[in-house]
């Protein structure tokens, strides 16, 4: 037998083993029990259309608010961290270290309950408002580091060239450095966005009114009412329906950016 034939044969055997293993797993699973517990069509039907009109809608709204807020805050913090004025750098570093180090769930709990108890001040927008403020504060810390890395990745010659053309430092940052930085950090920012979509599920700890529920809270409520786990599977599908097209879109944007370089 030629070595190449043997290699092909060996590879064929490996494929066969893989397929047999796969078939064995499929046959061994108790599909009836899985269908009953996780894929009950009637339970799934009951979730519509509320899952779209309330849960998906709120998840998207919360994500957009938290990401937009986090982006603005992150930009401010990144610029502070790169500032020539030391106290700004210290403040930004302290902030970033604090809120990157705390679990988002605990920060949400803090803004919803500890802050009102301590200062007798409640964030606007009720429980959802308090939770969103916390998410903005947490995502701002992460995004700040991403933006800072992006700014530092822009070759210093770019800024120097701009300055030698007579641009001021602020205008150089806005028109030359930042656009290039954001092009560089598109992938990690997408990551932040996807993480944020899922982190909105933590808002439940702050308390939820019926019309404020996002996907996970909605699914947990339905599970408890229908005595069936199907709504959790449905919620998982909804998250994928939101995230997959989004990441595809960003990938497309990235390819476009690459060509534009």
């Amino acid at each position, binding site marked *: 037998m030629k070595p190449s034939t043997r290699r092909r044969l060996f590879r064929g055997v*490996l494929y066969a083993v*893989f397929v047999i*293993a796969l078939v064995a797993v499929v046959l061994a699973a108790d599909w009836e029990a899985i269908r009953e517990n996780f894929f009950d069509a009637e339970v799934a039907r009951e979730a519509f259309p509320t899952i779209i009109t309330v849960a998906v809608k709120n998840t998207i709204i919360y994500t957009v608010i938290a990401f937009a807020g986090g982006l603005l805050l992150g930009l401010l913090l990144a610029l502070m961290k790169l500032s020539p004025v030391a106290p700004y750098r210290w403040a930004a570093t302290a902030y970033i270290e604090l809120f990157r180090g705390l679990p988002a769930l605990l920060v949400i709990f803090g803004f919803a309950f500890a802050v009102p108890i301590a200062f007798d001040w409640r964030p606007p927008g009720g429980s959802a408002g308090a939770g969103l403020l916390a998410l903005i504060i947490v995502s701002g810390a992460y995004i700040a580091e991403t933006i800072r890395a992006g700014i530092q990745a822009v070759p210093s010659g770019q800024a120097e060239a701009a300055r030698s053309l007579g641009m001021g430092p602020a205008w150089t940052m806005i028109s030359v450095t930042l656009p290039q930085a954001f092009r560089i950090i598109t992938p990690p920012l997408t990551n932040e966005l996807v993480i944020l979509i899922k982190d909105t599920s933590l808002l*439940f*700890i702050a308390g939820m*009114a019926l019309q404020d529920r996002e996907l996970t809270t909605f699914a947990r409520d339905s599970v408890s*009412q229908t*005595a*069936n786990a199907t709504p959790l599977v449905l919620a998982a599908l909804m998250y994928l329906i939101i995230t997959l097209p989004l990441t595809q879109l960003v990938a497309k944007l990235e390819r476009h950016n690459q060509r534009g370089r």
Partner: protein
Amino acid sequence: MPYKARTAAFTFLAIGALSLTACGGDDAGASDGAANGFNLVSEGTLTVCSDIPYVPFEYEENGEYTGFDMELVKEIAAGLDLELAVQDAGFEGIASGTVLAAGQCDLEASAITITPEREEAMGFADPYYDSLQSLLVPAGSDIKSIDDLEGKKLGVQGNTTGESYARENAPGAEIVAFPSDGELFPAIQSGNVDAVLQDLPVNIGHTEDGDFTIAEEYETDESYGFAMDKDNTELISAVNEQLTELRDNGKYQEIYDKYFTE
């Protein structure tokens, strides 16, 4: 080298998949509690799932689980001549019966209200506790009854009898659901809600330091039950026998008084 690496990966995957099926085959015949005649997840042990803490039904004290539910299942396990093992599980898994279907536990004891939907998914023993609801308000609040909640924020624990009672009987209130009493009580302390509708025994625990008081109590015609696999009829009737015996010999009343007298 890349070719070799891929081969290795395939072999690894195949072996992994095979061993997975091997495991799958094993637990299908989850050990028969042959001695007692009912199927148990683990032989000689009554494995109980509960969403802990939910004072005073289940909570941890001195490294042990205790509370009304826990003491009852302790007695039931002893009466059946079984060891007791308690597993803390999320309420979603418990209320949907998933932990039973997945073979994690034999019985769920977690202050579960018996509802028609749940009765379809799981088998319930006879009711062991009638859930009284109550309205907790800050001392000196002008909320004296459920009728004063118009336009106020009312906190409830999500997916409980309290929540459904509130939705039916306080339609004018803005109802805010929290995952557990651990957030519900901070919510009224921080003024995020004006009142809390919750199980009476849980609320009584919050009146102790005098800052909060119970404005009203409500009958709901609903009760708690221990849930089991529907098909495990032997275990269900055995638990029912134990419950009857505990009521007859006064042990039930003893435990009840320990947790529910003011």
